[in-house]
């Protein structure tokens, strides 16, 4: 799926699209009802692929999706922090999600193109947000909610659980990210 197709997909469900950027309210808190309410115990998620590994980001935490804007490097920062950029109506720290989750050791999958996109995510219980730079192409899917997840043993702390890939039973399970934990973890690392 291309970014334009993804944006069109998002546009079909939620508030508005403009200039190649989708936002669920220009960075405002709270997700639109279409994204926030899971259907049949399922949760709408943005599916991304990082070096062949599939991750899901609950869409209620996603504030905006766009092409990766120019990023300004920040001194004294870890390698996975690309820098800062203007997105979703403000300034966000841009995190290279593949490097952060240490999936970069694996090769890129065919569906991962050179075009990077930025997902701006926001924590539900804290005033934290970040831009996640991902190379894997994202698409919108319905996945099993919390009740239907397999516990994520041996995964990084930011993975809330595993769900079967709807594309096929023989495919590896998808790791669903807990955005709150992810952002708190990033903040902790940066504070350290």
């Amino acid at each position, binding site marked *: 799926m291309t970014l334009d197709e993804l944006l069109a997909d998002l546009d079909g469900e939620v508030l508005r699209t403009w200039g190649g950027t989708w936002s669920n309210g220009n960075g405002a808190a709270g997700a639109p009802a279409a994204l926030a309410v899971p259907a049949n115990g399922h949760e709408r998620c943005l599916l991304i692929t990082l070096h062949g590994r599939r991750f899901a980001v609950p869409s209620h935490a996603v504030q905006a999706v766009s092409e990766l804007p*120019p990023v*300004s*490097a*920040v*001194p*004294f*920062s870890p390698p996975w922090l690309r820098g*800062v*950029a*203007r997105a979703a109506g*403000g*300034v*966000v*720290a841009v995190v290279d999600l593949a490097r952060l989750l240490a999936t970069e050791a694996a090769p890129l999958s065919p569906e991962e193109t050179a075009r990077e996109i930025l997902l701006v995510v926001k924590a539900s219980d804290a*005033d*934290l*947000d*970040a831009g996640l730079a991902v190379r894997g192409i994202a698409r919108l899917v319905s996945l099993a909610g919390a009740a239907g997840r397999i516990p994520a043993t041996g995964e990084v702390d930011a993975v809330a659980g595993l769900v079967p890939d709807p594309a096929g039973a023989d495919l590896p399970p998808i790791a669903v990210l807990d955005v709150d934990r992810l*952002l708190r973890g*990033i*903040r902790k690392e*940066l504070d350290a």
Partner: protein
Amino acid sequence: MSVDRRLDPELLAGFRQEVDGYLPVISQGLAAFSRLGNADSLVEPHRLVHSIKGTASLLGLPELTEIAGHGEEALERLMDAAGSAAAAGVLAEVWTLVERLAASAGLALPRPSAAFDETAADNAEILDGFRQEAGEYVGAAARLLHELAREPGDLSPLNELRRVLHTFKGVAAVVGFKRLAELCHRLEDLAEATLAGPVPLPQAQIDALFADLEEMETLVLGELPAAADPSAPLPQPTRAQSETESAAPEPPRAVRDDRRRLREVLRLSGDLVSNHTAFEARFHGLKRQLQELELAVARLRRVSRQIEGATESMAFAGLASVAHPAPLPAAAWTGREEAFDSLELERYSGLDLLSRSLAENAADLSSIARELAGDLDGAESDRRELKRLTRGLQDQMLRLQLAPLGTLSARLDRTVRATAAREGKRVDLVLAGEEVELDRAILAGIADPLLHLLRNAVSHGIELPDVRREQGKPERGRITVRARMEGSQVAIEIADDGAGLDWTAIHAAAAAAGVLPGAHLLFEPGFTTTTAVGEVSGRGVGLDVVKTEVERLRGSVAVQSHAGAGATFTLRLPQSLALARVVLVRAAGETLAVPAASIVQVLRLAEPDARVVDAAGESFPVSDLAELLALPSRERSPARRSVLLLAAGERRLALAVDDLAGIFDAVVAGLGTLLPRVRGVSGAAVAGDGRLLLVLNPAELLAVAASGETAAQGTAGPGTERLSVLVVDDSLSVRRVLAGLLRAAGWEVQVARDGREALESLQATTRLPSVAVVDVEMPRMNGYELLASLRREPALRPLPVVFLTSRAGEKHRANAVSLGADGYLVKPYDDANLLATLARVARPEVARAGA
């Protein structure tokens, strides 16, 4: 109070007095919450209880620390419960804890003031309005009393004071603040009596007026906690506090929300300016394209005329119809055409028609270009108006963020008076430039540093009256706080006419600590010349906190002092935290912004890799910005590079950059929620083309450079070797002081007593040190001779040499440079600069060739 016998009783007495001052305010805040249910009333009690907890912990009072900790938590729960049914229960719990806290400190919890009429001011909206109004009246009264204190022979401020008090009294009575109204009445009477008294006013009378004003302020602040106002009282800073929380008072939630909204609107107005700049660039592009279009149309018309002329010539020559046969004529016309002579009827060939069509199209295009030019002229006018409005909007938004320094006057005055009374000294505070405006966030941030400097001035600067008399000084000391604008910066001087800094004690303390003496030491953490800890100051805590806080606000602090003639501390701060004129620089392919106010000089580097640069008669080690910030190198450095000489107080930093890329007024925002603080960076700004630029913090960059640690070094692996230094000086004291300083900074140190000893030592070693620090004048072999010898010997030639000498003359410096010195520093020297210089020029220890 359960006292650890090891604790200093004087310190504990001071703390107890501090708590005694807090309890009435806490009590009044709780009473106000009880009546109005407004969480804002709890902001001040919460801050004070937190302060008590921090200081109690610092002093080693576990019981009090624990009770205050519980109290703080309960107050937070009470704030959250405001307006709910649970509030009453939590409030009762808070009262119990505060009573326990008072008992643990051996104090009685005062009853809430009766100034509040139980039936009055139960409307939060009225109360909010009155808060603001009361602050204005008190501020006006304070300003008038200051005028009176300055010119006791001129009683005109008293008349104005009476008018202010009369109005305030009426308002307070209407809103229901009876005690406040009574106090206004008393002060009004006092002012009236004073008017009938002797002129000039006796000091005692002025003191009495100030005492009443102080009571009024206490009452207003206690009853109407308005911590958003930077003039709200604050406790003395303690190390524990300064390490764990911002010195700025936390404003009430509603005010925080308002400020957040204001910042958001300001950010949007900044974006508007940025977008407008981008629009301007596009607009000018459009104008250029229009000019191109007009030129193209002119060319087209010219070609069209040429074709037309050529066609006519061909027609006359009878060639046109041959070259381009005419379209087939209509049947009715067939044969009749021959009846007309060419002068009687024009004939149109295909070429004629093409030529005419071309001419018509050229005319159409010309007309469109003219209309487009007209529209663009109109748009140009609109653009200019839009620019004016945008700038105006931004200016007004920025002004909303500003407040006059005079809002702190009452607190400054109160602090000086209270400290002087405690110390048995007589001090006048003179305020000048109160109208100078500063960002509210800066005002809130500098309140504590200013109060600390004032307490220091009274405690350590101003002498006791009999001492001053003996020295031929007036009995009353004088402290002047003077503010003035310096470009986009505000300079605030705190000058006293006291004893001045005790340089002998500073030198002795520096020697004891093994560091080089200098005024900068006063701002180092833990540095003190005082062995006895006083209640007010002398704890070795404070000036470092002052410096840290001022630098956090992108400012600097400097001190000047002459024995017996007092001391002057100068704070330099940006007027606004949100707006900064910045110079854009390029480094390693990145564009970064440097506040223009911090740039002393811009120089061109003679050599791209030069490690030392001369400016204003001094040599400075060059720090490479890209290296300092460990920016990944995406571009090769150009052959011609620039150096910005940056100032942070008295310190300087020569910063090498690849290029300069312009200057503009930036609206500075944060770096996002994940990055509240980044060393060396004070924020981000949006450039005219929409790019995000990091705005650098010169004071922090200087600290990074002085520490000798770049980000790259900070991430070096365990194999990183320690740097070593050879100190060559004939003075034992200098060798000891330098060795102490350098070892403390992590260097391995060798010493030599003169050039000969150094040379022999280097010839005997298998590994050269990273750098040598060399005096000029030494017995047996001086520094120049040593350097010349080193440069003659290939094995010793790589050793970098920095001169550290008392010889400041240009002739001496030039001689050193001509011999190949890598740096030239003059004693006495700023040790941060020395460390930075050595870190810059040092090279890793290397095995000597052939050794």
